[in-house]
């Protein structure tokens, strides 16, 4: 086989991926500058009305809520997922495999089912609040949803498997003699962790954070099922505009904005880890 034939043969997945990315984005851009038409998906002609509507307070607040939610879920999932992964890597081989299989298995559950389960868990009658009362943390049983906390809890549960699977390779290959070296050089356990483990794992940690944040930015079911309209992030507004409001151009414009914000977040993360932290 000639070299160019081989190149064509091997390049089709890349070309297919490119096509499947470019076409929907191009479509999104096209729809976002079309006028809405109640009788059709979108109308003929060009207008920037949909983008202008993004300057309205409800859009700006929704974007702010999206970003807040993404950052909080990113921090909470990395904050909980990092120690969890660290302890999994220190277990015996069989226990490690068990944990990873369990986490992979949770990914097969639909987010609708998970959100519903959280609704039940946070309800007044049979939920977590009864346990909190028993522990003396609450005066009487109460419904814990809808609330921002409920949305964060459910989203964290949904993204933690991704966090663990992202951190696992780096933490399982961590050279333990580096930690021991830090300890013999006078570092207490927590200083050895902050001065050796964190710098060694800052890239996968940042990747795990960005992954959790991006997954949160696109979430739809958990905020709807566990939050009030004033808690809804932009992803829910996009869904509502497209499905209930029949305003596809507005949904497309919001999607473009969210796409740009996501890209900026990822770029910012790459820049942050590229520079070596000064000790």
């Amino acid at each position: 086989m000639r070299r160019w034939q081989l190149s064509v043969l091997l390049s089709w997945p890349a070309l297919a991926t490119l096509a499947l990315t470019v076409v929907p984005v191009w479509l999104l851009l096209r729809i976002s500058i079309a006028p809405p038409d109640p009788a059709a998906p979108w109308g003929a002609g060009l207008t920037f009305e949909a983008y202008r509507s993004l300057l309205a307070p409800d859009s700006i607040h929704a974007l702010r809520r999206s970003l807040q939610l993404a950052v909080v879920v990113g921090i909470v999932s990395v904050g909980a997922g990092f120690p969890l992964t660290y302890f999994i890597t220190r277990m015996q081989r069989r226990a490690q495999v068990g944990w990873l299989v369990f986490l992979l298995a949770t990914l097969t559950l639909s987010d609708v089912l998970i959100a519903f389960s959280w609704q039940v868990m946070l309800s007044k009658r049979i939920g977590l609040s009864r346990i909190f009362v028993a522990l003396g943390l609450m005066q009487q049983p109460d419904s814990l949803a809808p609330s921002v906390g409920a949305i964060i809890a459910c989203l964290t549960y949904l993204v933690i498997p991704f966090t663990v699977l992202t951190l696992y390779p780096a933490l399982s290959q961590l050279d333990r003699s580096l930690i021991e070296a830090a300890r013999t050089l006078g570092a207490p356990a927590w200083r050895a962790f902050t001065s050796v483990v964190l710098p060694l794992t800052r890239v996968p940690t940042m990747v795990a954070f960005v992954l959790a944040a991006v997954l949160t930015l696109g979430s739809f079911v958990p905020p709807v099922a566990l939050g009030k309209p004033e808690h809804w992030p932009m992803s829910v507004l996009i869904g509502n505009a497209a499905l209930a409001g029949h305003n596809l151009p507005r949904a497309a414009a919001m999607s473009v904005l969210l796409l740009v914000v996501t890209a900026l977040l990822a770029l910012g993360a790459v820049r942050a880890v590229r520079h070596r932290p000064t000790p």
Partner: protein
Amino acid sequence: MSLGLEVRQLSKHYGSQRVVSDVSLTVPSGQFVCFLGPSGCGKTTLLRMIAGLEAPTSGRILINDRDITDTPVHERNFAMVFQALALFPFLNVEENIAYSLRFRTINAQQRHEMVRDLLALIKLPDIGKRRIEQLSGGQRQRVAIARALAQEPMLFLLDEPLSALDARLRDHMQVELRQLQQKLHITTILVTHDQREAMSIADTVVVMADGRIQQIGSPTQIYRQPANRFVAGFIGRSNLIEAQVEDGLHLRVGERLIRPLSMPAMMSHGESVTLAVRPEEIRLLARPQHELNCLTGRITFTRDVGNEIELRIDCEGREIIAATSPAQWSALGAAGEPSEVALQLPPESCRVLTS
């Protein structure tokens, strides 16, 4: 300041596996001690227990009569150089060396001076800003040593740090390490499986096997007076010849009588012992002799390794290795290559081992 170390009946078990059994030893202040033994003999585990990286199953560790068995590793102030060196890849040379100084209250000026002095000490004054991956194997070695010394440790522990270097560089680093230790007068323990390394740099060698100490002594002592068969076989080359006690002064090897310089006390006639003789201490004679301390045999293999001729000699079914200088060998073979030789075992070269 260097202090003396004392280990009392230290043991480490992993389940039913005894890695270190009932080890007691003293390391006087300012000494260079080597833990020497084959891999899996427990020497690294013993070192890690002293460092505080492993908790002993039983026994105590004392430094200047102060019990430190339960002192956390970061409070011991013992420097350690790891086999893999464990330099921090995300820090440059200077930052690696200054790492331990983060945990002390010294100002930036003092820190800078200490790092500069240590770089001068390891004879690499200009590499402070380099990254670890830019260093050669020997440079990394020295940086790891400088980093360990920066904390001005009470005890300097090294876990086979030279094993990854090629033979020439290893020789060179052995000399440098010894000079550094003598200059700083710091109590040092080096773990190694290389007996040449241990013999050439240590004041005291601790020979270990199966989690136990086999012998503690100066390099000359463990070479000249091995305590048992293991030490005689592990340190240098030895012929271990089965023999029987004849009387209070003599041993019997086959039909021949051997008179060693000294015999163990309380031995009875016919008891089995091992006679250890170094190949280079055997004197070769051209004509078969029938006197005391002489064996005869047939040369089965000759090997010229430059500074000596090594011979394998079959003495009535026993293979004995003898070594002789090229000059003596040519004198011996003046009348053609000899096939039958007599081996004279001088009394002072005959060591009788009962264990």
